[in-house]
């Protein structure tokens, strides 16, 4: 059965800190890994990673994938209170003739002023 495990489950930091969120996976026929941010309502897309070792960056957020060790990290530098959210990792794979998408349970990040 496909698994996506995120750690830590929750994290509390102070503004200005740097955080690293982890996502490990076990799937058959991996295709891509995705990161989303969920504040009070619906998730919003952050990154899609398909190749190992290539960093994706958007402002203070960056992410990288290691397909050999089957994990990805999401880094947030100089955190702000607006970064407080649940960060979701998801993995897509191709199985049984169709694409599958499995989400992790998320990491709840709280950034205190």
């Amino acid at each position: 059965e496909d698994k996506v495990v995120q750690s830590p489950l929750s994290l509390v930091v102070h503004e200005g800190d740097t955080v690293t969120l982890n996502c490990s996976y076990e799937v058959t026929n991996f295709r891509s890994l995705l990161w989303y941010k969920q504040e009070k309502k619906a998730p919003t897309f952050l990154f899609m990673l398909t190749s190992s070792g290539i960093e994706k960056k958007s402002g203070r957020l960056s992410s990288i994938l290691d397909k050999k060790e089957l994990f990805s990290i999401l880094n947030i530098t100089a955190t702000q209170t607006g970064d407080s959210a649940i960060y979701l990792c998801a993995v897509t794979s191709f199985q049984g003739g169709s694409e599958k998408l499995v989400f992790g349970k998320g990491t709840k990040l709280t950034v205190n002023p």
Partner: protein
Amino acid sequence: DARVTQTPRHKVTEMGQEVTMRCQPILGHNTVFWYRQTMMQGLELLAYFRNRAPLDDSGMPKDRFSAEMPDATLATLKIQPSEPRDSAVYFCASGTPGRDYEQYFGPGTRLTVT
């Protein structure tokens, strides 16, 4: 400002009743996803469509759930009969051609089955 819309935003119903949730994807998006989110299970993919054709609905309990796209501007998720364990937030999301998973989520329908 293009966005995915979902109706209703909230629904309270009694066990055994039929529930229909509707989603209007962003114009031009050809992939539509239905998700369910609960505290216990997190976000689960129920079904998704590409060009209105169902590609995968293995995450959906088939005996009571059904998903359709009668046209490119409307996706529906139906539960019949509903059960208390169906209480959750149901999200619809849509994606652009070739970039399916850069999804735009709707605001969700919060369903409570008593």
